[in-house]
């Protein structure tokens, strides 16, 4: 199995999840609210005319655990759907292999369960 992780803008979360399902048929995701920054190093805010810096920006961390064959499709779908048109801050997507992916409910490995 492959873990696909993506950092995306919070307002793109649902768009990205829908795009993954449409492109690959994969259903199932974990969303974690996250903060962070890329090369833009955060943002300057203004409050009552005074400025202050926020190093971090609100993002979301999405995790999809998918069959190996689906991974390239998921990555492509995420990258495409997460693009906002802004100059920076759209985030990243990456993959990593994971093992022993097991359902709590059945106690069975997902690879075996889905091979049936």
């Amino acid at each position, binding site marked *: 199995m492959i873990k696909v992780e993506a950092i995306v803008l919070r307002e793109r979360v649902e768009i990205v999840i829908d795009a993954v399902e449409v492109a690959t048929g994969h259903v199932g995701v974990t969303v974690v609210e996250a*903060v962070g920054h890329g090369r833009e190093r955060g943002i300057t805010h203004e409050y009552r005319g005074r400025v202050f810096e926020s190093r971090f920006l609100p993002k979301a961390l999405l995790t999809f655990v998918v069959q190996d064959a689906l991974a390239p499709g998921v990555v492509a779908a995420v990258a495409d759907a997460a693009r906002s048109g802004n100059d920076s801050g759209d985030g990243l997507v990456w993959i990593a292999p994971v093992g022993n992916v097991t359902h709590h409910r059945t106690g069975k490995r997902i690879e075996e369960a889905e091979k049936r």
Partner: protein
Amino acid sequence: MKTADVVIAANTIWVVVAAVLVMFMQAGFALLEAGLARMKNAAHIAGKNVLVFGVCSLVYWAVGFGLAFGDGNALVGTHGFLPSSSALLAVGKAPFSFFSTVPGAAGYLFEVVFAGVSLAIVWGAMAERAKLWVYFAFGAVFTVLYSITSHWVWHPGGWLYSLGMQDFAGSTVVHYQGALAALAGALLLGPRIGKFGRDGRANPIPGHNMPYAVLGTIILWFGWFGFNPGSTLGVVTGNRIGYFGYVALTTNLAAAAGALGGVATAWAVLRKPDVSMMLNGALAALVAITAACGFVAPWAAIVIGLAAGFLAVTGVLAVERLGIDDPIGAVAVHGASGVWGTIATGLFAAPALAANLGTGRGGFVYTGSLHQVWVQLLGLAAVGAFTFSASFGALWTMKRFWGIRVEEHVETSGLDVSEHGMWGYPEFYIPVPGGYGTEAHGHLLGHGHPHPAAAEPEAA
């Protein structure tokens, strides 16, 4: 002092106290509307109450008070614009001869807070998507429209008053009228992004803070003790001394019945005793009893309140079914209930109380005559036609030439940050210096060590 002067003094104390209570209803609207809106719009929607009350207060002094209560003809007041201190200090003299037992200034204060309530209702249905400048522009327009119809119904020279329309404190004038403009606004703005799915089904968009909404409702209920009883405009009403106490009682009975009626209806229809529907029930009952409060027996107040509680829940659902997005429920709570309260007065007005007030006749259940109901319906039709078409026309023009709805990215980011440059709850959205997540927690470990010094504040 002569006895007459003492009565004027007592009346003025009561009217100013009542006006201050009604002004506090702005706090109720701020909390109710903020509570029923999303977090990203909370500061904007609470803050706009201050903005529009400011607009309303100035416009009402300049032209509204003269249009509504200045001496004039059957359609409109024609005197008392930009009133001077001498015009406002006189009692029962031109241009405000209507106020025969309080100074014109007390009259202004009491009436401007009513205009402010009516205007506050308007934005409930337009919440979370209207451009900020519309609040200034339409706030001024609506204040003028409101002043004209309040002259029809409340000024003894007004044509609906002359027909005997009974609207003690403004179910029609304040609430129905605010809801008409709210409906026009909601229709022209269209629903919020995501309110209705592609198949047309309504998605719930929950408010972000129910305790706020509850507190707002309680403050409105409290303020209503100025709104209805204060509409006696004095401590002696006809031949009854202290009649305002009785008006407060009918008001409270109706609100109590409405809260219970609302929660019971929600329990039956939605299968859950929804808190926001209970609040809507209490508010709808207060709206409905507003016309009737001076005219009806205690049992009738309870009937009116219960029915309003039922109407509030079914009305909110019906408005949504029609594809109209009304985030706070203004159309159902103030519109449908305003209509109900106005008609109910024609049904339940006690002949003796109507005679003492010198307005209209007894209602259908006492007299068997539908005369008063027809008068009430005529008033509703006239105000409805005028205010809805004028509001729709004004907002349509603004939409056509300048646009009244914020851009999509403004709506999705929320009006707090996009219109005002700061969220209502900044620490929820961005890390703030010294804010949430950066606090020292030594006290939890029992160390009691001193907090590290905060960063030096920027030099001023």
